[in-house]
């Protein structure tokens, strides 16, 4: 999981699957990184890895067009 201050590389993809960690341009919360769940053709839902994260209901369904890429690599601060 991403630690505070981590650098992350995201790649655009034609296919996103449940469990992918995505960079989202969220209409309310701006650029956020969340795990995809319930991915379908037009939209998907999000969940955070942290127990204190926003609820999936508060983030709502996300249009596929708002997905900017999926996490392919990250470098944490202590590396």
């Amino acid at each position, binding site marked *: 999981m*991403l630690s*505070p201050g981590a*650098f*992350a590389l995201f790649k655009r993809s034609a296919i996103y699957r449940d469990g992918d960690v995505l*960079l989202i341009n969220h209409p*309310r*919360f*701006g*650029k*956020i*990184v*969340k795990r995809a769940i319930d991915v379908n053709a037009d939209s998907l839902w999000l969940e*955070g890895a*942290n*127990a*204190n*994260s*926003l*609820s999936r*209901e*508060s983030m709502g369904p996300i249009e596929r067009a708002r997905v900017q890429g999926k996490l392919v690599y990250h*470098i*944490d*601060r202590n*590396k």
Partner: protein
Amino acid sequence: MIYSILNYLDGKGLIARASAHCDIPCGIYDPGPALIAAVSVVRLMDIAHDGASEDPVALANIRARCTLRKEEEAEKVKQEIRIIWGDYFKAPLLEAHPNVHALVHAIMQKASACKQDVHREDGLALVELVNEFAEIFWRTKSIETTRKTCPYPPQLKLVYPVLAD
């Protein structure tokens, strides 16, 4: 080494930022609007039952307005409670107050009953459930509460926070 290079580039503004651990931007939660909406449901039921006008058309108009507004206020109760429950109550608070799930579900059910019919006892029960939710909410903030009669019809006892200043 790689982190240091990336950190340098980040300092130059060359790397876009994203939040992975965001919370609600404003962080303002208060059960007050839900309580006012619940009291409004009772008030609208009272007006609908009143039959104050002799004119049947005027009476139909009053009751149509009350029904519409009652629907909206009951829905507002559900929306306000859902937001606090879904966004404010996080794992540690839920562990400390495990009955919140059942209480919220009861509020959803009772608010729907208020939409479906005009039974005043359903409205009163809704106010009481939201009162209980408000007491739990303020307890999570270590703020005492008191029950006072609201200074407007239907003058029911509502939970208010006892604030220091």
